[in-house]
């Protein structure tokens, strides 16, 4: 910037200098002044104008302090005046001599004023405001409680509670994307708003707690704290406490209480302190100074000295200070900075666009099919070229591995879903006046990301059943000799190609008498029919059977278990229930781990090929003639390991042709489907393959016995059998 330009700028600055009038700075003028200063410092970069820059910097800080009212107005004004004079003098040409002395004098004066105030570093999280004129809180209790205030309090309760209930959803979002600043802001704002109003209404406890929450989130935002499970828990606990306090205000208004409730904050404070300590210990990113000392570039003493200098007025960065003092070369500093940047990025995880991930998994699926087709190609099959066959075998192995890894990418632990359910259980329990504890096992069990949303609804209904109908009221439980607190256990594990989720409660168990009554009422069975306890339990899944009729506010009407069963089966899953009178019930839901690929045994019946999920194959055998029987009323059976199992002929079931051989001349696959096994007679077993499940489309989706189709290596289509519905077909 040329001398002339600079001079003009300063003149402009001066003419906007109308500050003091009755001892208070004029804000708009201060704003303009600051903008001029920015212009000057930006244009001043050469060494000769270094003093100008320093003075400009000092002026900026003085004005900022005046705006924030943290230094004495009169003195500050005089200092600014002094600074402007000095600056003018420098532009006037006196670069050395008196010019310098005047500069130093001004700098000292400014430093003294500023140093005696609050902070000296760039960012301060504490209130810089100290003047009485600015932030006097409302006089506690001395103001008469006016009509208007009551209306405001009522609004505060309503809106405040609304905000708090939003927070829960937002917190879950935060867990999923901890770096999303939009998410952090969305969480920050409700606490900030609540704190704001609470301050006016003199609700100190609420205001302080909201402030603590806000503070935590602010630190996440500025990377002074990372999003971890304990942090989430703290936020949720804080939210609960706020809910309680604000809710109790309603009681105060209604005259039920005289004071709002004051939950014990000590535990929460302790937890917050712990989180801070832990973060600082772990310190994922080292400070520049630490890195340089660690690398032996500077000593601890040098670092300490440099830090002190850096914090002196005007504030400089550590790196700069070290360079200026000759303690480190610019190469060393930039190397350390790069190291630091590397630490920041080395988070261990990476965020990926979900769509890209899904696309990739789909493509891997196609790869599996294509690779299988190549393998089945007659030219390839007939080839004797060793190298070719070796290469293909390797390709098959790699494809398999790739497929496993890619579906693995989409897998997430079921923990989040369980946590949502846990919160739901808490809310439901509170609503219905019950006391319920939640226990979890296997939260690390993984499930395809896409499935987590889908399974949530059926799980919610099962949970509701457990809380509403399973767990008894505290009084009842005590009278039965049970602990007052009911227990709901959520557990998950992998079994075969599926994830098995169990929701168990220690409540009253299913009311079998009532279930039977209703089943008869609805015409599902005759009165005298004999059923095992398990079978009675399973009647729960018939339409209209489950006694969930209460309207609850989470989703409106209570939903029957038949709907839940349907929902589960839509996802290719299964559901079951077992109960023990007075002791509790357990719902078990099974879902495929992934909807995309299944490991299956390819079998031929006549000219058709079918795929039996390997997870359901118990055994493959060639039966002996003497093990084959026909039983009146039951049809063909086979004796397998002492059990008498029905024999199914697929061509009869599906109306196709078969080779019509005797079972002892063909192969039998013993297929298992939840609790029962049957024998499926097949003409030939073609092999075992991982196939990509293709949906049969809307129209054929609900065909019983079949769960989808797959393109086999030969290029033909095979139907994937669904053992459960297949058996059901035959049992009718």
């Amino acid at each position, binding site marked *: 910037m040329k001398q002339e330009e600079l001079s003009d700028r300063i003149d402009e600055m001066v003419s906007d200098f109308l500050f003091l009038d009755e001892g*208070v700075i004029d804000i708009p003028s201060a704003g303009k002044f600051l903008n001029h200063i920015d212009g000057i410092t930006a244009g001043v970069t050469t060494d000769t104008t270094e003093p100008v820059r320093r003075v400009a910097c000092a002026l900026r800080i003085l004005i900022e302090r005046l705006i924030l009212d943290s230094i004495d107005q009169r003195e500050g004004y005089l200092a600014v005046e002094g600074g402007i004079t000095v600056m003018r003098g420098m532009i006037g040409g006196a670069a050395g001599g008196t010019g310098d002395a005047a500069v130093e004098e001004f700098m000292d004066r400014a430093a003294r004023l500023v140093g005696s105030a609050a902070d000296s570093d760039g960012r301060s999280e504490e209130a810089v405001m100290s003047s009485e004129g*600015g932030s006097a809180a409302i006089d506690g209790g001395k103001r008469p409680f006016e009509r208007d205030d009551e209306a405001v309090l009522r609004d505060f309760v309503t809106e405040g509670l609304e905000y708090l209930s939003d927070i829960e959803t937002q917190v879950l979002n935060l867990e999923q994307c901890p770096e999303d600043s939009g998410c952090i802001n969305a969480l920050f*704002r409700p606490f900030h*708003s609540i704190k704001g109003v609470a301050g006016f209404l003199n609700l100190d406890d609420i205001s302080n707690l909201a402030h603590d929450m806000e503070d935590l989130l602010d630190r996440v935002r500025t990377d002074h704290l990372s999003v971890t499970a304990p942090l989430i828990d703290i936020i949720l606990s804080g939210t609960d406490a706020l809910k309680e306090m604000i809710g109790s205000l309603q009681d105060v208004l209604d005259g039920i209480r005289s004071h709002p409730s004051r939950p014990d904050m000590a535990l929460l404070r302790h937890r917050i302190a712990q989180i801070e300590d832990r973060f600082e210990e772990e310190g994922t990113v080292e400070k520049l100074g630490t890195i340089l000392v660690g690398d032996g570039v500077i000593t601890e003493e040098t670092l300490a000295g440099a830090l002190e200098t850096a914090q002196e007025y005007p504030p400089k960065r550590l790196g700069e200070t070290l360079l200026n003092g000759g303690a480190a070369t610019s190469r060393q500093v930039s190397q350390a900075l790069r190291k630091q940047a590397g630490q920041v990025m080395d988070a261990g995880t990476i965020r990926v666009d979900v769509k890209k991930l899904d696309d990739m998994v789909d493509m891997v699926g196609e790869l599996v099919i294509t690779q299988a087709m190549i393998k089945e190609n007659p030219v390839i099959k007939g080839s004797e070229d060793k190298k070719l066959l070796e290469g293909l075998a390797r390709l098959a192995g790699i494809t398999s591995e790739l497929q496993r890894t890619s579906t693995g990418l989409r897998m997430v632990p079921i923990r989040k879903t369980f946590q949502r359910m846990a919160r739901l259980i808490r809310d439901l329990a509170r609503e219905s006046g019950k006391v319920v504890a939640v226990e979890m096992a296997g939260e690390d069990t993984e499930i395809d990301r896409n499935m987590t949303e889908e399974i949530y609804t059926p799980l919610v209904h099962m949970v509701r059943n457990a809380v509403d109908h399973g767990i008894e009221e505290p009084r009842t439980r005590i009278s039965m000799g049970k602990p007052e607190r009911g227990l709901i256990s959520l557990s998950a594990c992998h079994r075969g190609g599926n994830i098995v989720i169990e929701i168990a409660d220690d409540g009253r168990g299913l009311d079998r008498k009532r279930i039977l009554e209703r089943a008869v009422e609805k015409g599902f069975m005759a009165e005298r029919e004999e059923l095992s306890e398990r079978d009675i339990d399973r009647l729960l899944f018939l339409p209209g059977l489950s006694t969930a009729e209460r309207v609850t506010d989470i989703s409106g009407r209570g939903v029957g278990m038949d709907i839940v069963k349907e929902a589960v089966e839509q996802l290719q899953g299964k559901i079951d229930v077992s109960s023990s009178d007075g002791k509790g019930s357990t719902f078990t839901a099974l879902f495929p781990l992934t909807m995309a690929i299944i490991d299956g045994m390819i079998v031929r019946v006549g000219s058709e090929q079918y795929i039996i999920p390997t997870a359901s194959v118990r055994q493959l055998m060639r039966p002996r003639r003497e093990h084959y029987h026909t039983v009146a009323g039951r049809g063909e059976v086979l004796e397998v390991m002492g059990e008498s199992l029905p024999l199914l002929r697929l061509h009869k079931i599906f109306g196709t042709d078969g080779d019509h051989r005797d079972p002892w001349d063909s192969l039998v696959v013993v297929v298992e489907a939840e609790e029962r096994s049957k024998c499926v007679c097949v003409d030939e077993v073609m092999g075992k393959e991982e196939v990509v499940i293709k949906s049969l489309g809307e129209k054929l989706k609900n065909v019983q016995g079949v769960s989808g189709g797959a393109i086999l290596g030969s290029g033909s289509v095979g139907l994937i059998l669904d053992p459960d519905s297949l058996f059901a077909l035959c049992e009718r």
Partner: protein
Amino acid sequence: MSSDKHMKILVIDDFSTMRKVIKNLLKQGGYNNVAEADDGISALKILRSETIDMIISDWNMPNMNGLDLLKTVRADRELSGTPFLMVTAEGLRDNVVLAVKEGVSNYIVKPFTAEVLNEKIEEILKRTENKG
């Protein structure tokens, strides 16, 4: 325009309870002609369709925060001279300085009393008067 108690004030905050609180405080100061908006965008609609004599806006709002609203108002030919009082929490230093640089008329720190609010309003009006 000196302290005209009939002047129209626009209060902007996404928390409706807060708007009520400010409205009440304004009432105590004798200002009864108060309009409300819950974010910057709806505020602009009101500003462009009615004559607003003073804006009192919160800082932290979704869609368009107080700072962006201030910038938009100051950049708008017709609205640029509108007195603008920014409500902030604890005078967080960065925010206040930013607002001042963008031309805010004054700022006030939550929580405040009716007296302080009144003072700030009068101060703003006095300056506006002086500038002519």
